[in-house]
């Protein structure tokens, strides 16, 4: 008994010494949950952008909150939203309740982000979306501000503006074809994956192209978003005599379509939205057959702002791939840092007014949130880009002196040589 008593006294003494050695009030990190399908390119973009920003911020000492420098701790939340939306719900619940994150960034599929948004709003966590484009996500803020005020969208621009850019790209390509090939009336094949977000673009195309843009719609094709073969569609498009294929793809069909279009050397320019062609792996996955594919994009190696090229180069150096729009988490972290430092707190209600007042020169343009907490689009703000694959490189081809906007490094849009040959010989 006496021996046990001595051991107890020693242990108690040791505990006291250990307790005295611990620093009083150790600095608690700011926890940011990064949401994304981490096995897929989109999730990799979320994580890469966030880690790059977090490393830079922590390297510079952290975030100054009420005089204390606090580091950022990222929590990787794999939403698996491509394969299962319930997985996304569970992942966000876990981030909020178990890991007790202070803020959330990321998300990709609108259907999944809507659910994630609800969970984040219930937990009163500021959530900066970097992936989903549907306007409804921000309409919710105007409809029910008190509930959805913690939501902001940073990338990409919403699908309404994406549609605008889409038609500008189409008009630009049509003008170049008319001038280069002497075509009087441009014939357009509208090809859009069968998905709800693509329906408005198809409907508007059918009305707008003949009525306002002086083009002829030779047909509308709606392949499945995951179609593995588009040769039949391409044969029909060529039979229809299309000069331009106006694409609306966000899924794997974009890769299949571009690859087969290049293999068959279809004499039409592919212009529009093709999310797969925003990725560095597109060139290899199509075996170079996706050359000359044009798409709306967020990043390219052009001087949108003084931050763009350094960000782009560092990203490529670190991750061996070009950033896609989900890497907007990089800017999201800097926006949060600025707001937290101004608020002197990590409490959502204190930080919120400062996020609302954001006027930040980011990597994709000047970020100002509108009343619906959506990123503002237009000259002087975020414009988005038109990029085209040109001999193995993603080149920015738009804005090319549009509304006095020109980013250093932008090059002219190119027509594939077989398109030029075909239509010149046809005359």
């Amino acid at each position: 008994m006496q021996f046990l008593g001595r051991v107890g006294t020693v242990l108690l003494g040791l505990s006291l010494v250990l307790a005295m050695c611990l620093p009083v009030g150790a600095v608690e990190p700011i926890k940011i949950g990064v949401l994304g399908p981490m096995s897929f390119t989109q999730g990799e973009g979320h994580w890469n952008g966030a880690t790059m920003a977090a490393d830079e911020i922590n390297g510079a000492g952290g975030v100054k909150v009420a005089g204390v420098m606090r580091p950022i701790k990222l929590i990787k939340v794999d939403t698996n939203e491509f394969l299962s939306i319930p997985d996304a719900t569970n992942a966000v619940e876990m981030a909020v309740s178990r890991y007790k994150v202070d803020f959330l960034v990321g998300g990709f599929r609108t259907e999944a982000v809507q659910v994630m948004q609800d969970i984040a709003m219930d937990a009163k966590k500021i959530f900066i979306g970097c992936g989903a484009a549907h306007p409804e996500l921000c309409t919710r803020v105007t409809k029910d501000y008190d509930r959805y005020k913690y939501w902001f969208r940073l990338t990409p621009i919403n699908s309404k503006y994406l549609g605008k850019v889409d038609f500008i790209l189409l008009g630009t390509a049509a003008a170049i074809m008319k001038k280069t090939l002497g075509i009087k009336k441009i014939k357009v094949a509208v090809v859009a994956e069968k998905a709800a977000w693509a329906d408005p673009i198809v409907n508007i195309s059918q009305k707008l192209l003949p009525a306002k843009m002086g083009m002829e719609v030779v047909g509308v094709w709606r392949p499945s978003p995951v179609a593995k073969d588009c040769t039949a569609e391409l044969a029909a498009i060529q039979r229809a005599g299309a000069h331009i294929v106006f694409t609306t793809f966000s899924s794997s069909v974009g890769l299949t379509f571009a690859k087969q279009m290049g293999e068959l050397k279809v004499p039409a320019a592919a212009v529009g939205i093709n999310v797969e062609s925003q990725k560095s792996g597109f060139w290899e996955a199509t075996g170079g057959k996706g050359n000359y594919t044009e798409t709306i994009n967020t990043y390219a190696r052009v001087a949108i702002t003084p931050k763009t090229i350094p960000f782009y180069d560092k990203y490529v150096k670190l991750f061996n791939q070009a950033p896609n729009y989900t890497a907007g988490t990089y800017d999201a972290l800097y926006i949060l840092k600025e707001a937290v430092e101004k608020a002197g707190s990590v409490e959502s209600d204190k930080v919120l007014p400062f996020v609302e007042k954001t006027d930040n020169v980011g990597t994709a343009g000047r970020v100002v949130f509108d009343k619906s907490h959506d990123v503002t689009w237009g000259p002087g703000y975020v414009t988005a880009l038109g990029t085209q694959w040109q001999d193995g490189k993603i080149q920015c081809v738009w804005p090319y002196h549009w509304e006095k906007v020109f980013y250093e490094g932008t090059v002219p849009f190119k027509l594939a040589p077989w398109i030029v040959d075909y239509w010149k010989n046809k005359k």
Partner: protein
Amino acid sequence: MILDIIIDGLIKGSVYALLAIGFSLVLGVARIINIAHTALYMTAAYLIYVGTKMMGLPAPVAMVASIVLTVILGLLIYNFFIRPIQEHEAAVLIATIAVAMMIQEVFLMIFGGHYLGVNPLIDGYATILGVKVTYQHLLALGLALVVLLATRLFLQKTRLGLAIRSTAQDREVANLMGMNVTRVAMGTMAVSVGMAAVTGAIVVPLVTVEPTMWMHPLIMMLAIVVLGGLGSIEGSFVGAFILGFAESMVVFLVPMGSFLKDSVALSIMILVLLIRPEGLFGVSFEEER
């Protein structure tokens, strides 16, 4: 347009036929509903990607290696997951679903959800009667026909082929006649997986390699097998071309509904089954009982 439909339908049908005949063979002989069949087709596709893109092997070497490795994997799956429960068809069905999901998850873990591609063996295209067809598609069509012919000869002219056919007709009688039905089943499994692997090898330059690429061919393959008659090799051959042509017709005749091509193909299957429940070449259910 008719020419477009014929050429496109022929190419699609031949690829489906390769998959469906392999599946049908093992179903007819060993009563194994191997849902992992198209997951093995995907395995061959990934192995070719690894061989050509990551290891820098010449494409033909990578193709042969991938076929051999896939057959070995298929036999391991048969030995460890199927054989112990072979007598319980429902259990085999569920086990092979699990195996297919496992294969998918393994590839997802290793390669992520990235869309990968393999270069065609022959670049360029030919114009046949005004229809552009890539050489790789023509090669796929040619190879598919050669493989189908070789399978037919194998089944008709070899001792193992005879054993497979007799086991397919009546497993019990084949057993009583002194055939080692387990060994025949294993041989059939090897041929069946080999066909899945060959299909993967032929098709890989035409498709996007990704961890869920096995699902769509699985649905089409099941539809073809049911349409042709469960376990009937002739039925699978004919069924594959019917669905291939049906898909092409939808795209050419209803461009706005080209996403419906799979649904239309499956509807044709249902229609045929309503008229002829045993499928085009199947044994009637009454007779079977």
